[in-house]
């Protein structure tokens, strides 16, 4: 039951990126607020750009999601809202095979720097492949943390990676 060329699954691992704080910026001032904070402005909608530790995605004509390292203060803009995203990071060659059980998307075509918004195990998520192919980030509303983290731990365990310990949601 595996439609993917055999990959080395042993280095598959899961970690949590709780070093990032998410903000939603919307409205005409959002672009200038981001520039003022020295943050990049992704050109196309539904695309993202990294700048140092920060990540900015453009999700609308004038709507952005900004993920800044903890401690960095929020962009100064009236319509800027803190988000409570939980961000998981999947590393290792087997990430495509893992995601193939959770999301109907051809992740073989997802290049570093690509931003995707899709349903993962029934939960609306954003996904971003870090430059240099370091990790796949999966962000979602923290209310689903218990549910989705359990699933990712189970899959990393099953597919042969290390790190995760928690029981599965099977």
């Amino acid at each position, binding site marked *: *039951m*595996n*439609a*993917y*060329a055999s990959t080395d699954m042993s280095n598959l691992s899961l970690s949590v990126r709780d070093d990032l704080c998410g903000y*939603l910026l*919307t*409205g005409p001032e959002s672009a200038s607020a981001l520039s003022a904070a020295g943050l990049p402005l992704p050109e196309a909608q539904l695309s993202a750009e990294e700048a140092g530790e920060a990540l900015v995605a453009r999700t609308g004509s*004038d*709507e952005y999601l900004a993920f800044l390292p903890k401690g960095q203060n929020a962009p100064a803009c009236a*319509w800027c*809202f*803190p*988000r*409570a995203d939980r961000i998981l990071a999947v590393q290792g060659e087997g990430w495509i*095979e893992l995601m*193939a*059980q959770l*999301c*109907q*998307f*051809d992740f*073989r075509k997802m290049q570093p720097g690509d931003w995707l918004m899709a349903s993962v*195990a*029934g*939960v609306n998520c954003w996904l971003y492949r870090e430059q240099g192919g370091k990790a796949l980030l999966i962000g979602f*509303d*923290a*209310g*689903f*943390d*218990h*549910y989705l983290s359990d*699933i990712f731990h189970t899959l990393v365990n*099953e597919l042969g990676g290390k790190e995760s310990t928690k029981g599965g*949601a*099977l």
Partner: protein
Amino acid sequence: MKYRLDPQPLEWIDRRESVSFRFEGQSFSGFSGDSLSSALLASGQKLLGRSFKYHRPRGVLSMANHDVNALFQSDEATNIRGDVTPVSEGLDLRACNVNGSLANDKDSYIGLLSRFLPVGFYYKAFHKPKKYFPFWEKIIREKAGLGEISTDWSATRQPKQYGFCDVLVIGAGASGMSAALTAADAGADVVLVDENPHIGGSLDYQLANVKEAAAVRADLKTRVRSHAHIRLLEGHYAAGWYTDHYVPLVGADGIVKMRAEQVIMATGVMEQPSVFRNNDLPGVMLASAAQRLITRYAVKPGQRAVVLTGNDEGYRAALDLLEAGIEVAAVIDLEWLDKRGPWAEQVKAKNIPILEQSAIYEAKGKDALTGVVVGEFDGRGCDSGLTRKFACDLLLMSVGWAPASQMLYQSGCKLGYDKKAHQILPRALSNGQHACGRLNGAFTLEQRLADGERAAKDAVAQLNGESVNMDLTLHRDSVAHSHDWPIIRHPKGKNFLDIDEDLQLKDLINAAKEGFDNIELMKRFSTNGMGPSQGKHSNMNGIRVLAEITGKSIDETGSTTARPMFHPVPVSAMAGRRFRPERLTPMHQWHLDNGVQLMEAGQWMRPEYYLPVSEAGASDAAGAGQIDQRQQAILQEVQAVRSGLGLIDVSTLGKIEVMGPDAARLLDVVYTMTMSTIKIGMTRYALAVDDSGVIIDDGIVGRIAEDRFYVTATTSHAAAAFRTLSLKIQELGLNVRLANLTGSMAAMNLAGPASRKLLSGLTDVDLSEANFPYLGMREGTLCGYPVRLIRVGFVGELGYEIHLPAAGAMEVWETLMREGQSAGIRPFGVEAQRILRLEKGHIIVGQDTDGLTNPFEANMSWAVPLKSKPWFTGKPSLALLKARCQRKLIGFRLPQGFNGQLPKECHLIIENGEIAGRITSIAYSPSLGRTIGLAMVDLPLADGATELKVRVDGGAMVSIEPCPTPFYDADGARQTADLTEVA
């Protein structure tokens, strides 16, 4: 008697690894790689099952899962397909649907009664007199069904996987491998799938002894296994074709749901049986079945064989039998030798008797084949007078093929009967769909390879967006490989058309006589093709018989709809991993640590009530029943809010920020009341109705600035509320931005007389009545976190709904619980909130209202400003409905100290024998010391009645006393609210 042949060049079995299992109480052994059927045959066990209706002895027919003769069950599994299930150590199997044992099945007498059980007999009997039908039904149901199940089995689930490719080739025989290689060489990303554990298909089992094929086979297999652009999936069958080339590939350990751009069907053809008396005896099998047994499992299908043929393939099979050391007593050709090719010449050269223009009139034998009666055959019938007999224990049938075209039909392709080839062939293929090989009439090895290449080139061209003029006939064979009427009548019948369903030729003829003379009605009345193999070996002959009866062509006769699945799919694979999204609030851990009893609200888990750890222990000891303990806890929570202080987690509410120049206009459209007149820092009740005026949701709208509002919605309607707002923005082209803060913001309602006092010590917001009036909304900080405080009235006490970013929620909640101890603060849940809101007469949308309730019926005409507001969703409907109000929501109460049978929600109000309404909410109110409730009562009764009768469980009538609402703090002094609010 040795049944295992010497090692065969292409055999699948591993002779070093023997596997033992039990069947019908006896022990058997086979080799790893054997299927159950091949292992049993290799041990001389020819009898594999009993037929469904007459319990006749059955053996191998197709060896390809195109019939269910070999159907077994064990204590762990049922309906196990012997042909294709690999042997495994320790299996303990028995036959299905036998009464007693396989060897002596007490129900085998039914065959003798077949004269009394014609087609559709069960429609004609057992129903009169009516009261005896259940007796007969029990017997019929016991005889029905195949394998047994155990309801103690646990649920097993196999994970599913999404797959993607440019070109999916289904079937890894000669044409499939050729197609895959051609597409891959052109750079396409190819997946090649085959239902068997090893690739090769008929290139292996049919051409095993053909020298020219050997080189081709070796080359194709090595290139397919090593090609960088080909992913090979053996042991997976394609369950069906679904919209946009979505093809589930089912393997033993789970399903790959493959999405392809192009699909090439190289699924080959299914060999069809000839229909003659006793054509179901063990020892009578399809020629390809014998070839599969010999080449794949090195099993000798018999000692002395007769081969019935209507094509070249029969002679090939005869040669293969000879090659395997099996005596061939005769070859019976339905037509004549000069129609045949070189293989026939080779058989002739070996002095094997060849009877032309002959057919098998009857097979002989009780539990297995012992001989055949051959008669002269004129293409339509067999002359029973001029017959010859041959003793044999093996009879091969090679009379023709039906295309494995189920998925072509499912994807909308058109197929038609080719009178020359006597075979249904593809005529017009839908976009992205291709067919090649014997499925497309290309039968010689060269034709199969060329046709595979052709199909792949067409697919790659379409993949690259080029237009393709597809010529499907390029490599079709000019010689027919199927006979058009391999069907022999016999006065004594037992000439089976659907071997699974025990359907004789006369059953179809009689069905047509009774008026079931079109292909769909014939199928349903006779059940032809409705068995577990879904017509794979019976549909084609069924169409031929009906066409013959009605005098119509095969195309006019048509075929029944080809539905998924190609083979039945295990529910464990279909269900896949269990995903039940569950959403928790930021304060969840605190709830768990403090004796919460959770309830499910959509995907959320919410506190229903709390059994404080200390008290829970105590009351358990006191033996209070679980229900009383629950009721007691809930009432204590209500009293805490009324007398001192309560705190409820309402983070599950929909929370939406609405910003922009047209924000007020948007809210005016979506909600009934005018939102554009709300003053900054104030909130208003927000009632939402649909186009027809039915209440769908309610919440609160608070104004933060001229162009910025904060909107809340009920838990179950939160997503829909956000979606409706964003829809109206697009429909009306409004300049508004939305932020869905439902998960980003937490919310808790601090309610009770002591709430202001507690809060004032923790926030910089001026809580004075003057600065922060009822229904006001103020922003500030609380425990250092940015908060919004809203004075809401849902529970009817002085209170503040605290909304803040999720990060600070736990700390604020813990601080409030700690600092509130002195005021007797207590966490409360949904159940207490229901009672508190009921005491204030507030409705719950979906409980007090139903699918048709409009605001006038819910006593909320104050929320429908028909005169003052130019437009809001549903306005014209409400203008019409205002004058037609047929029922009304009223309050009622029971006498204090009432100890009769309590009415429940949805008990009916009865007025002179007719239904006049129902109770929508009812609960004991500790604040009022009596039971109160809301009821939806027909007009005019609702307006005037001083007493109403409710029919309670058991039918007794209980009287209730209508009374005005709110029941508690009618003038709202405790919260100075005059409008109803909803948290």
